[in-house]
């Protein structure tokens, strides 16, 4: 089982690496889905089946599809891929890479390095999550719903056709 977790972790990291290096948006999206599925497996292994399910349904399902739609609507041709290649010169990776390395080193140091006592996490099913969600966290649910409503309204407002109000912004 432990091997499975480390395997999933390796897949997730590898897929993510591929996501950030692709020039074609659709390729990147597909790798991201792989990465998310790996993460979902990790969730399951950590005793969070509900979260794993949501990861697959919402993240890999809904959100990524949204991305796909948008990429389709933008109708990015080969010229955008060529532009993408131009932007992705090796020099562009040096700075962010170094920065990330420094941060990673710090985090590793903070988290106490590689060797630490192993523990077995307790499994927490959908029932407990549901009870907590509509018990003490009901306010957070309300907040999330308001946020989603705002997202809905905002997305609608931004994306509606507005020929007449071209100069507004």
């Amino acid at each position, binding site marked *: 089982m*432990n091997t499975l*977790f*480390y395997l999933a*972790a390796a897949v*997730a*990291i590898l897929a*993510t690496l591929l996501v*950030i290096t692709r020039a074609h*948006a659709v390729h*990147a*999206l597909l790798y*991201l889905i792989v*990465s998310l599925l790996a993460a979902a497996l990790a*969730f399951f*292994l*950590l005793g*969070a089946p*509900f*979260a794993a399910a*949501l*990861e697959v349904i*919402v*993240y890999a399902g*809904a*959100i990524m599809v*949204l*991305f796909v739609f*948008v990429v389709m609507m933008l109708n*990015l041709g080969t010229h*955008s891929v060529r532009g*993408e290649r131009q*932007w992705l010169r090796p020099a562009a*990776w040096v*700075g*962010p890479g170094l*920065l*990330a390395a420094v941060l*990673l080193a710090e*985090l*590793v140091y903070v*988290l106490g390095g*590689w060797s*630490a006592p*192993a*523990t*077995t996490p*307790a*499994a*927490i099913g959908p029932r*407990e*999550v549901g009870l*907590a*969600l509509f018990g003490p*966290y009901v306010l*957070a649910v309300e907040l999330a719903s308001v*946020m*989603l409503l705002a*997202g809905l309204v905002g997305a609608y407002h*931004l*994306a509606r056709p507005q020929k007449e109000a071209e100069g507004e912004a």
Partner: protein
Amino acid sequence: MVTIPFSHGLLLAAALFLLGVICVLTRRNIIFMLLGLEIMLNAAGLAFVVAGARWGQPDGQIMFLIVLAMAAAEVSVGLALVLEWYHRMHSLDVDQASRLRG
């Protein structure tokens, strides 16, 4: 059920998060920047789940749910903005959007 050190889960989250950071910092295409953000959000959610598993409490998963909802809202608004912006600029280059330069 696995038996691994708690920190390993968190290290995975950190690694994913930093890959997201690299994506945001490196890519000029706004779609890829959004993807980077998604990666980071997902990593944060992973960290919450790991922490929740460590203490055997549902709170971690609840925070993951909140992050999820936020990611959904963010993506919907963000992508709408991308569409609108692309209509105006005919480009996805985020560096062209620098009108706020001081």
